[in-house]
């Protein structure tokens, strides 16, 4: 998913074997690394947790179209414009795969959208940051899509079949997203001094928010244990974050750009990159709705939905009319 921070939920303990609601058959299937399919019996909390996570993931994909979509008309060349359009179109598709996966659990897409529009369900906070320059499009592809891929790859093996299958398609498509972002930054970084500065500025602004996409530290992530017990989550927030840092830190050298963390250093002993402490107070402010663009993103989303209403209605009317003529003929 785009962000691991599941803020809407009430913390629930991982199920214990002596819990009366514990479903022995179900847990045997999970322990056997089996897959749960739509019409199987499943614990209610498993179903509700999945609906919430998949919906939040779907919402993130479609809200995520906004920061980049705003640059389609301003891309610096026809080639960059075609690439960006393909990427934003992919994100719409990801939203669709995920809404469809959620619907296999017995909810309606229209209802999930309604919950998004009324603020009852969240999307990833990363999309509440602005994209003032073209270099932001590079930084989003490289860092935001990069972090998303790190989060999503393990979900291709999650216990719920339709979610895992949707994620296989998504991960295949994501790989070009990160590369095109990297290429944008690489081109800018090796361009004029102004272009280099623009690339550096974007990376400076997106680095820490990208690290926060993995969610709060493990000791502060109440839902993780349950998610892991159920095979929905395979690695902890901190493990995934470390994997991302290990991947991107060396790439920044190839870009000729620095990362805004004086404590970032390779630790030969552990084989991992150490990084400085993350200031989560900012993330929690953004989640609460106090980010730079929360209101604008939601207003744009609900406006687009409402203005599309007549199209949805007309298409239904057309289909109904044709069904009638065919019945008569």
């Amino acid at each position, binding site marked *: 998913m785009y962000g691991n921070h599941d803020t809407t939920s009430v913390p629930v303990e991982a199920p214990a074997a002596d819990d009366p609601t514990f479903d022995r058959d179900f847990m045997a299937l999970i322990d056997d690394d089996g897959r749960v399919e739509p*019409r199987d019996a499943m614990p209610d909390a498993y179903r509700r947790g999945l609906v919430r996570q998949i919906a939040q993931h779907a919402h993130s994909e479609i809200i995520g179209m906004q920061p980049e979509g705003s640059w389609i008309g301003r891309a610096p060349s026809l080639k960059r414009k075609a690439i960006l359009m393909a990427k934003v179109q992919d994100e719409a598709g990801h939203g*669709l795969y995920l809404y*469809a996966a959620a*619907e296999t659990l017995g909810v309606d897409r229209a209802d999930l959208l309604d919950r998004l529009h009324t603020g009852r369900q969240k999307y990833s906070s990363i999309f509440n940051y602005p994209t003032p320059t073209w270099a932001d499009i590079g930084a989003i592809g490289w860092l935001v899509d990069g972090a998303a891929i790190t989060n999503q790859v393990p979900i291709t093996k999650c216990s719920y079949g339709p979610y895992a299958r949707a994620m296989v398609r998504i991960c295949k498509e994501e790989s070009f997203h990160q590369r095109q972002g990297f290429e944008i930054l690489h081109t800018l970084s090796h361009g004029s001094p102004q272009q280099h500065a623009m690339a550096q500025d974007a990376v400076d602004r997106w680095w820490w928010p990208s690290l926060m996409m993995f969610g709060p530290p493990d000791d502060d992530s109440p839902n993780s244990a349950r998610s892991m017990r159920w095979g929905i989550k395979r690695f902890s927030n901190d493990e995934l974050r470390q994997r991302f840092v290990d991947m991107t830190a060396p790439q920044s050298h190839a870009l000729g750009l620095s990362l805004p963390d004086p404590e970032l250093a390779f630790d030969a002993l552990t084989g991992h990159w150490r990084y400085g402490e993350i200031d989560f107070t900012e993330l929690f402010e953004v989640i609460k709705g106090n980010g730079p663009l929360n209101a604008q993103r939601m207003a744009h989303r609900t406006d687009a939905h409402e203005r599309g209403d007549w199209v949805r209605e007309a*298409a239904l009317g057309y289909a109904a009319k044709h069904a009638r003529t065919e019945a008569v003929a």
Partner: protein
Amino acid sequence: MTTRDWPLWEVFVRARRGLSHSHVGSLHAPDAEMAVRNARDVFTRREEGVSIWVVPAAAISASSPDEKDAFFDPAADKVYRHPTFYSVPAGVEHL
């Protein structure tokens, strides 16, 4: 917000000639024609298919997962339906 959502369709794609159509996912569309067009845009943006079927999700009948044991059990003790059940004398080939 006011309109109910379009009906759900299950989508099947033939990846290339010589293969059968396989289920790839589902989508909402007002009618069959739009379902095929939307399926093209959603599931074959990278040449993943040469043919698409769409089926109204409501038209699919399925075996019940609750009865899967009783329903599929009769096959479990009929191992003689598999070639590996039979012993073949050493040296006999192409059997």
